[in-house]
């Protein structure tokens, strides 16, 4: 059986990689995925933060001071604008985030209850957290003065004037910013998941193509059993997906210097576990499809939407709660969740639930596929 399997594996690999298209699909695309992740998140790495400011609070001194405070922050470049332009510029990535000082902002600080300030961004916490935390500290101080004055405007002005005389002391210490690397890793793994799933269906689809061109009949009329043949296809699948995993991680770390913060020894096994689930799903698709074109249609119908829902194309945090709950039923979610947890410092050994769920997906898909294969293995179709 091993000799037969080896013979079949060699033939499938030779046939697959003699076409340039296969090199592009199986090897090139995962690398392209890493490149796209770099392009998406690389521009925020260590650069200047572009903040648009909309002042709807008029000439209030407190508001003007707050704007000057933001302007004075290190690596922040402000642009005074109006609300409509701000939204357009953020959408067009001309600005990283926007601050809206609404009417009543200064008055709320005088009362000691800061309100009417909005911070907007589409790039998430990684670009807003810096401005937000420092501005909160500044506003907190002014609000504390407002609370101390207890509505006495003269007392507030006196205290505020004294506060302005002192320089706001800020001691900055550089630490390594890993948020961007995390985002790039997440995105690159998201793309890798998609490519792995498509690759797996393409490879498993070879079974249907063999049936269509009648070579499957020849194979089954030889001493090779259908079980050996399907198993050889699964092994080819595992080999190619493993190459994709290792190549993507190597390119990320060594060539593009994207440090995921997760050792290869942890990343490869968990990705390989997901690969098994992807292969299980591809067997399921092939078992239910009547032709290779049918399998192609099913592949598009299943893989693209589920990858979208599980956050392979953009962070799941920006999706509504209801959709995030749906993603709990998808294997992609559990892989991305594992990667996220490992990056946040969770120990590898504490992810046993994630591993069990991924394994359960692989086993369930494969079992249903085997049952279905057994039911429709009617050679009348091939004679």
């Amino acid at each position, binding site marked *: 059986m091993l000799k037969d399997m080896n*013979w079949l594996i060699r033939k499938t690999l030779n046939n697959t990689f003699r076409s340039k298209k296969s090199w592009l699909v199986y090897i090139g695309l995962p690398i392209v995925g890493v490149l796209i992740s770099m392009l998406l998140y690389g521009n925020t790495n260590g650069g200047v933060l572009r903040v648009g400011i909309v002042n709807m609070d008029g000439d209030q001194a407190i508001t003007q001071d707050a704007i000057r405070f933001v302007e004075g922050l290190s690596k922040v470049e402000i642009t005074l604008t109006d609300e409509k332009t701000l939204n357009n510029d953020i959408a067009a990535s001309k600005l990283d985030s926007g601050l809206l000082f609404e009417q009543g902002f200064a008055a709320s600080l005088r009362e000691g209850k800061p309100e009417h300030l909005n911070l907007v961004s589409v790039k998430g916490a990684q670009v807003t957290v810096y401005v937000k935390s420092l501005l909160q500290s500044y506003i907190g101080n002014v609000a504390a003065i407002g609370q101390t004055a207890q509505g006495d405007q003269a007392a507030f002005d006196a205290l505020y004037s004294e506060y302005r005389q002192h320089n706001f002391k800020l001691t900055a210490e550089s630490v390594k910013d890993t948020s961007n690397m995390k985002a790039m890793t997440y995105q690159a793994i998201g793309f890798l998941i998609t490519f792995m799933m498509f690759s797996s269906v393409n490879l498993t689809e070879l079974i249907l193509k063999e049936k269509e061109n*009648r*070579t499957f009949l020849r194979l089954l*009329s*030889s*001493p090779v059993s259908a079980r050996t043949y399907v198993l050889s296809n699964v092994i080819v699948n595992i080999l190619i997906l493993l190459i994709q995993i290792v190549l993507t991680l190597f390119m990320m770390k060594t060539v593009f210097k994207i440090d995921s913060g997760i050792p290869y020894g942890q990343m490869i096994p968990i990705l390989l576990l997901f690969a098994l689930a992807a292969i299980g799903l591809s067997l399921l698709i092939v078992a239910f499809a009547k032709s290779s074109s049918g399998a192609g249609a099913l592949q598009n119908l299943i893989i693209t939407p589920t990858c979208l829902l599980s956050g392979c194309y953009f962070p799941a945090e920006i999706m509504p709660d209801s959709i995030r709950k749906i993603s709990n039923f998808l294997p992609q979610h559990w892989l991305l969740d594992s990667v996220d947890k490992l990056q946040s410092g969770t120990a590898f050994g504490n992810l046993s639930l994630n591993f069990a769920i991924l394994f359960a997906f692989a086993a369930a898909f494969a079992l249903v596929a085997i049952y279905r294969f057994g039911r429709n293995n009617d050679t*009348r179709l091939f*004679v």
Partner: protein
Amino acid sequence: MNILEIRNLTKKFGDFVAVDNMSLSVREGEIFGFLGANGAGKSTTISMIATLLRSTKGDINLLGKSITSHGKFAKTNIGIVPQDIAIYENMTAYENVRFFAGLYGLRGALLQERTEEALEFVGLGDKHKSYPKNFSGGMKRRLNIACAIAHRPKLIIMDEPTVGIDPHSRNYILNSVKKLNEMGCTIIYTSHYMEEVEEICTRIAIVDHGKIIAEGTKEQLKAIITDTKDIWIGIKANESLSIEHLKQIPGVIAVRLEENTVKINSKGEINNLNKIVQQLIKDQIEIRSVEEQAPNLETVFLTLTGRNLRD
């Protein structure tokens, strides 16, 4: 000695009985013709012999061993030439034969030798580096055969190996079948072309509705129908021909039209030639020739099954 013995073989698909209690024997060294119209049960029987389908009932023994309990032995000793060409278009002729022969455990120098031998045998020795996508239909059929014989099976099953090919390739294939037989292979040959079966087969079985309705040599089969005769009438044009009118003539069993020849099968003891000619003249058919044919396999088939082989 019998290489293949089939006893009470039955295959049901739901309520449909594809093969009905079939029994037959194929002797070692013969070319056994398996004749039947579409849906007669030939391919189902072949699939069961090749262990691709499980029988509902009955036994198949190859070289004295049951193929159910000795599946691998059976597969090693059988070579199948399927009706549809089953080769890889993106592999060269050499790679195709080598791959399929390798499935039978051949490796190394022996594999190379057998692969080259099979390609030479089907006349594709000089095309071993070519891809089948550049081959003619006949060349593809020959490669289809090479893939089935490289492992030197004792029994070769050929399912319609000459469908849709040019006369040159057909002759080549028929000569190859004879040569394989001379080399010691037993062959089961199915074809829609009666003249091929008549030319190469030593024994023939006629299958209809899943049953063997006649079995024997050509001569034995023809002897079954000595009580009938074939009359072939060449005509100029067939527009006004009425087959129904001819069928009403006493003694006429079957009438069919092939291009401009009316082929009539009639009872031997009734002299109805005059009436047939008169009817054609009455139908304003211009007669070119009249011949009485000796019975052939086509007549036998028509008489036994009531239908043409190509129905």
